């Protein structure tokens, strides 16, 4: 990895102690409970965790898409840093403090931060053309462009993501496209206003493996060409390791480990990450059994006295791990773990 590039990149998004809870009538779900991370310009942050760990809610919170009843951002900050100009760094905006229906957040949406979703079929409106949905955002955020210009740009975008006959398909409806093409169209739509950060919420989970590979290749190419920061969310460690520069592992609403992608894959420290790593079947060697992670996720309304991973941890220390929750500690430069094992005396 080019270390000079690492040093040169500055913070684009700074999330500190984000807490997002859902107040349901069966109980309160602490979906995101004190999550902090940085996304730097031009770098990709991979977010990995099981379903229910809060990774999607984190992504939604960044764009204030969390449905306000029953959800709510209860605490924390989401600092969006403006691009550096000759005049020097501008003031950062705390997205968490904005009004979720106000003008400021709507100016940020899509223009600064865009998102692609898991289900391309249902994420497009079935009764509007693909082109219409791509140009829509441009018409809102780039008022200096004429309708014709936005349409031309839409065709250009569709072409750049690898959709053939873009000038015809721009007038197609989403159900007329195949799954892979729909996802490409969604990527084109996301790029339409030139965002500095692209959040990808499990974009390939609903696609089959060969298409998944194509989409990943496309994303990597776009990332390097456009120098765009990306936040890639998945439950698939293999995919994450391929696409990310840095990785953040989440479990039940908290970050349990962050490190560079290589480190997480080669030298995971947190028992959960290690278990995830072990559960990936490899093509090398002989495997007689798969190694799943023991146990199941606890109920979402449960509160935990100690470490949240206690019930499934192989290295759990009774008396300590079930009493006090561990803190997120930097054990090596750029590598943080939340585990009592690594708390030095």
């Amino acid at each position, binding site marked *: 990895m080019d270390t000079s590039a690492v040093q040169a990149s500055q913070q684009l998004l700074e999330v500190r102690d984000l807490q997002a809870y859902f107040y349901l009538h069966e109980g309160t779900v602490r979906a995101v409970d004190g999550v902090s991370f940085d996304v730097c310009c031009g770098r990709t942050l991979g977010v990995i965790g099981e379903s229910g760990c809060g990774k999607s809610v984190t992504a939604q919170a960044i764009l204030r898409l969390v449905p306000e009843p029953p959800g709510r951002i209860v605490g924390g900050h989401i600092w969006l840093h403006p691009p550096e100009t000759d005049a020097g760094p501008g003031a950062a905006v705390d997205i968490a403090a904005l009004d979720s229906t106000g003008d400021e957040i709507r100016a940020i949406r899509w223009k600064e931060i865009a998102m692609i979703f898991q289900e391309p079929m249902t994420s497009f409106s079935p009764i509007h053309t693909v082109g219409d949905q791509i140009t829509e955002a441009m018409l809102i955020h780039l008022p200096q462009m004429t309708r014709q210009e936005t349409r031309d740009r839409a065709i250009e975008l569709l072409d750049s993501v690898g959709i053939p006959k873009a000038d015809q398909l721009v007038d197609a409806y989403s159900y007329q496209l195949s799954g892979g093409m729909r996802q490409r169209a969604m990527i084109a739509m996301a790029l339409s206003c030139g965002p500095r950060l692209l959040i990808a919420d499990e974009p390939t989970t609903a696609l089959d493996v060969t298409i998944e590979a194509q989409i990943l290749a496309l994303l990597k190419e776009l990332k390097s060409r456009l120098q765009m920061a990306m936040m890639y969310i998945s439950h698939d460690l293999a995919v994450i390791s391929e696409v990310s520069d840095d990785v953040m592992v989440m479990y039940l609403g908290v970050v349990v480990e962050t490190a560079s992608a290589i480190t997480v894959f080669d030298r995971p420290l947190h028992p959960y990450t290690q278990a995830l790593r072990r559960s990936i079947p490899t093509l090398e060697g002989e495997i007689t059994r798969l190694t799943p992670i*023991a*146990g199941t996720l606890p109920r979402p309304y449960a509160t935990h006295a100690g470490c949240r991973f206690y019930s499934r941890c192989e290295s759990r220390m009774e008396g300590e791990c079930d009493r006090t929750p561990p803190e997120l500690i930097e054990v090596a430069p750029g590598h943080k773990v939340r585990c009592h094992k690594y708390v030095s005396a």
Partner: protein
Amino acid sequence: MSANRVLASSRTFLSTWIERLRAGRKGAGPETEGDRDEEFYYASQWDLMWWRFRQHKFALVSAALLIVLYLVAIFAEFIMPYGAWDRVSEAAQAPPTRIHFRSPDGALRRPFVYRVARKVDRATYRWSYVESEDKAYPIRFFTRGRPYKLLGLISTDRHLFGTDGGVGVWLFGLDLLGYDIFSRTVFGARISLFISLVGVILTFFFGILIGGIAGYAGGLVDWGLERVGELLRTIPTLPLLVMLSGVIPKSWPIVQTYFVMTIILSFVGWVGLARVVRGRLLSMREEDFALAAQVTGCSNLRIIFRHLLPGFMSHLIASLTLSIPAMILGETSLSYLGLGLYRPAVSWGVMLADTRDIQAIAHLPWMLIPAVWVLVTVLLFNFFGDGLRDAADPHRM
């Protein structure tokens, strides 16, 4: 099969049933690695439905009120102070009797009424009724009155309330000819409430039978059912009922008319239900569990009744409940128009038929009270049915 085999198989059958009943309520779940002891409570489909239903406050209240209504209808003669055909011509068109709680000197007394006398207005020839305050007649409970047979079995002459001395307690007033509206409303509830039940039972059987065949067998029967359903939806219900009632000759006795009307009313309902049944069967037929049943060698009939039907029984019941108001309204509308039941039969529709001339009854608003009762009953059934439907299928699948 030898007798021993029969005995043995029925014994195993019984024992498995008893086992299931016992274990079904509380059982220990399988232990998996790392699992703490968890006890499982197996809730049947009906348990789940009841729990969800309980959350629907409106539906619960409606259900309770409906039970009260039906009880009133069953014990009608007891609750009615007077007979449905007892006429008090000298007090015809009397307004509802005022029940007093205070004597003239202001003291609180048990409820009582006064005798009324008719006064004729010289100018308009309208009757009005004045209370003669000389004697107070207290309302008594469990009074003696017209004899009847409670539930058709027990001879008695006790009524829920009334007065000594035969002074009228007409809670809803008297109609044009002097019949007690309260008594007739209570009595008429029988027809209105039960004709719909009978109709619903008929609808249920026809609907399941035809819908089941269409859904499971498919082919011509199914196609035919689709077309019939479409046709019936094109013809508006009430005009169709009107036309159908025209088929019944006027000369028929009322009881016969009653039965044919019930069949007519259920006719309107069964096609809809058959289509629902068919739709459900069609979609469930493709499910894996149906396939599994087929593979294990179950006959088609068994698959339908034992495997598929229980899956949507709850929806069926909800749909049926929701079709009751339509039947009540059908009978009421037809009788109101004079095309259904008619005097001397007593139903709410027959009672409302007297109100056709609005201007004539403009100063007798109490004659519209049966309309309020129809409204209330229909609303109660709607709330109740809606609650059932939500409980059966909260996600509207």
